[in-house]
């Protein structure tokens, strides 16, 4: 990653201690942090400067994170990470469909948050136009449907196929770079960019696990082909579609 000026993060949380400690933690990892205690403060602060990522708590007195997220999205496109207190799928989907880019469930591991902030920053740097609703895209390939906000994969027969976090991130890396040879380092980097922690197995193990689930015949793979001395090649044509946010 090319080091430019320190990225500027805005933390919005009603808990002063969490805010302060998080600010210290991110500052230690070379980020500039500004804090806000509620929605009102957040909008005031936003007028005062330029921010790269907003970290927004959902459970707050007054306007909650979802409301603020909707308000924010009507005016700007700054990448947004939600801190959801409930580990409920509905909450995550609502958050992502309201325009958040990612979510972290409380109590979160600060390193995971850091990894996600970095991933978002990297994507924003790589393709500034695509910053909007990065986390909520539906991909289609060979009859399969991969929904990144639900983190779900549906087979051509309409059956929900379960993937581990590592497999899911690997598959996203493949569908985002279809019909291209990706070597192990590239895959590791692409997949780690999403979630860095649960990915300690070698790429080869992950690929073989993934093949078992999505290939018709895992012994003669048709979707993910091995390229000798090169890595892997995702053969299917992928179509992507951003979701329509319900009014």
């Amino acid at each position, binding site marked *: 990653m090319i080091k430019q000026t320190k990225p500027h993060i805005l933390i919005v949380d009603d*808990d002063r*201690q*969490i805010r302060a*400690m*998080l600010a*210290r*933690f991110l500052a230690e990892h070379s980020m500039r942090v500004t804090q806000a205690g509620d929605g009102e403060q957040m909008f005031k602060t936003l007028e005062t400067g330029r921010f790269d990522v907003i970290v927004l708590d959902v459970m707050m007195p007054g306007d909650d994170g979802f409301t603020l997220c909707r308000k924010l999205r009507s005016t700007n496109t700054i990448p947004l990470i939600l801190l959801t*207190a*409930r*580990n*409920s*799928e509905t909450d995550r989907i609502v958050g992502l*469909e309201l325009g958040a880019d990612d979510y972290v469930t*409380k*109590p*979160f*591991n*600060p*390193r995971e948050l850091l990894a996600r902030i970095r991933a978002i920053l990297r994507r924003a740097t790589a393709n500034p136009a695509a910053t909007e609703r990065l986390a909520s895209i*539906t991909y*289609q390939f060979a*009859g399969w*449907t991969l*929904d990144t906000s639900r983190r779900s994969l*549906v*087979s*051509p*027969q*309409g*059956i*929900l*196929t*379960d*993937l*581990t976090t*590592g*497999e899911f991130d690997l598959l996203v890396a493949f569908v985002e770079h279809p019909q291209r040879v990706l070597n192990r380092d590239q895959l590791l980097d692409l997949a780690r960019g999403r979630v860095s922690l*649960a990915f*300690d*197995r070698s790429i080869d193990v992950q690929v073989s*696990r993934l093949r*078992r*689930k999505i290939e018709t015949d*895992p012994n003669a793979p048709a979707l993910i082909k091995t390229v000798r001395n090169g890595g892997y090649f995702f053969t299917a044509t992928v179509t992507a*579609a951003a*979701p*329509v946010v*319900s009014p």
Partner: protein
Amino acid sequence: MRIPLWSKLRLAPRIAILMVATAIAVQAFDTFLEHILPRPGYLIIDQAWLARAAGEARQIAEAAPPTDRRAALASSGLMKYLGFDIVSQAPDYRQDDPTRVAREVKAALLQATALGPEDILVMTEEFEEHAVKTNVAVVSTLPIYMDTEALVSRDSIVMADIRIAIRLKDGAWLTIGPSNEGLTSLHHLRNILGLAGTLFFVAAFSIWMARSIVTPLTNLAQAAEKLGRERETTPITGMKLPELASIADTFNEMQARLKKFVDERMQMLAAISHDLRTPLTRLRLYAETVPNEAQRTQILSDISDMETMVSTSLAFMSDDIHRESYSAVDLASLIISQCDNFVDAGRTVSYQGPDHAELTCRPVAVRRAISNLIDNGCKYGGDVCVTLTDNVASLVIEIRDSGPGIPADQTERAFAPFQRLEASRNRETGGTGLGLTIARDVVVSHGGDIQLIHDEKSFLVRVELPRPREIKASRATKPHPKASAKPAHPQRSPLPARKRKTHNLSS
């Protein structure tokens, strides 16, 4: 059967009314039976005539050659009231019949025939109410009063039967009895029907009564059985007896009170668990500032344990398990993912079974159940082997570990919430005692079955999830909002219609 005001009657008057009804029914049936199958009639004979007829019959019989005696008697005109037979041996009639009729008839016969007392036998059968033969009244003089006393007394002139035997000259015996014995089988039938009818009415009315009391009690027993096992109350309705209706009302109120009591505590616990997340988040952040690497790891591991407890408790106390909608899921991929997650966490978990196996279920709930079971296996048993078998009608998941398992007498306790069988287990293992409870909750809500089995060397948790047979449109999963809003996804909509429906298991 609808009787006005019947439903308001209490138990005692109901029983009284039913007993009266039974008596009336039995009586009515008897009357009806008498009407269609009348009792045998009475044959009233003058004593002198009988003696004369017997003497006449003897003369006819003696006059005819032995082979023609029956024919001669038949043509005598005596057959209208009397029946005759010729037997070679003396019939085994009782000697010296003590009844008045027997004595008088014998005396008259002796006088009319001038035979010795040993040549004439007379036997009578005393009158009985349910006689199946023609009753015979032998009267010496007419007119005569026939009162009840005359029928039943030992000296009665009315007999159920009367038999006379006279020795003929050649040693054969002439027997004489009433001729029109009618169809005795019909009279037997009436007697049997009468008894059967009485039994039937008594049985039918008492069974009806008993059922009207016992059936609602069975409902009550079932509701009581479910109480405490299921979180939802089972209100008892449809009680007809006022006494039982009041019991049902009281029971329903008790259920509601208990549910409210439990719900309040659940909500409180859920609120506490929920609020614990903020301090846990703070702790996590504090832990990052601990300079000592070993200490930090220990603190983070403790925090992680606490998080697990909080999220397990929340999963148990919230109704999410029962609210999630059904969808078609590749159960094999789900189990493989769980196994791989444990492998990635450094455990030894293997999977045997097909790569794909479709089941319509609540995926998050099932994932949690399977994860809990594998987790238990890892914690208490070490190496775990998960097997999936597709039996078409159902899917069987077997989670096998080599640990000590759960003693058979503690099985029920193991499934109870917040129970940890610490006696045999290491306290270090942590957990909230909800793992098996949640697993069973999920399996049962899918109409399945969970068993704990010990075999020679290993401990086995066997889960059977049935494939729902009926597909009901009423509980269809909401179609994917994106898919329904965007016609630009052609691959999503042509799914077979069946896949989009969900299966209603819980009702």
